[in-house]
């Protein structure tokens, strides 16, 4: 049973517009959530994270929102740029453990 779900395999957005990537989780024991970006033939790159005690974290063009009651988090990219085109993975950590649980990823395409 998948504990971290990214239900949209792909997303296409126009340059300059907002990209919203979604992630749902099932286990309330997760207390730390992360987003990674991955380009082909490279390893995942850490993008932004959020603790379960917060509902928002912002870093430049990237904002992550956490809705604990809905067990849902989202990554907003504003404005989207062609260089943002990549696969984005949502990941979660259990309390007291370091093992990341990943979603299957969403491929974002930002068109000029």
């Amino acid at each position, binding site marked *: 049973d998948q504990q*971290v779900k*990214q239900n949209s395999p792909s997303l296409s957005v126009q340059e300059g517009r907002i990209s919203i990537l979604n992630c749902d989780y099932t286990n309330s024991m997760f*207390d*730390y959530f*992360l987003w*990674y970006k991955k380009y082909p*033939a*490279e*390893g*995942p*790159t*850490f993008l932004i*994270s959020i603790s379960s005690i917060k509902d928002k974290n912002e870093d430049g063009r990237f904002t992550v929102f956490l809705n604990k009651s809905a067990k849902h988090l989202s990554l907003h990219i504003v404005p989207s740029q062609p260089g943002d085109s990549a696969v984005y*993975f949502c*990941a979660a*950590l259990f309390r*007291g*453990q*370091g*093992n*990341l649980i*990943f*979603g*299957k*990823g969403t491929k974002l395409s930002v068109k000029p």
Partner: protein
Amino acid sequence: DAGITQSPRHKVTETGTPVTLRCHQTENHRYMYWYRQDPGHGLRLIHYSYGVKDTDKGEVSDGYSVSRSKTEDFLLTLESATSSQTSVYFCAISLQGQNQPQHFGDGTRLSIL
């Protein structure tokens, strides 16, 4: 740059042969991890280490073993490779401890024929 080097970057081998992948870090960090990435599965944890000679199993550990005799090196071994172990393997390190972002190497693409 988290100073992670994976070797080899690509390998093709035959079913039944032993294979060892190496992850080397230059930052002296305590926590190291091995993941595999397969289409439709995201990344899944194979094994991890929280110090020299201290390792534990992850979600998909069957058919794999690991060793960490030095802080900087974490080895992943397939004792007898099978075609189902064809995958891209990523090593990661945790810079500050368990509940911190992990940083990944560029991966090893392993094909088992």
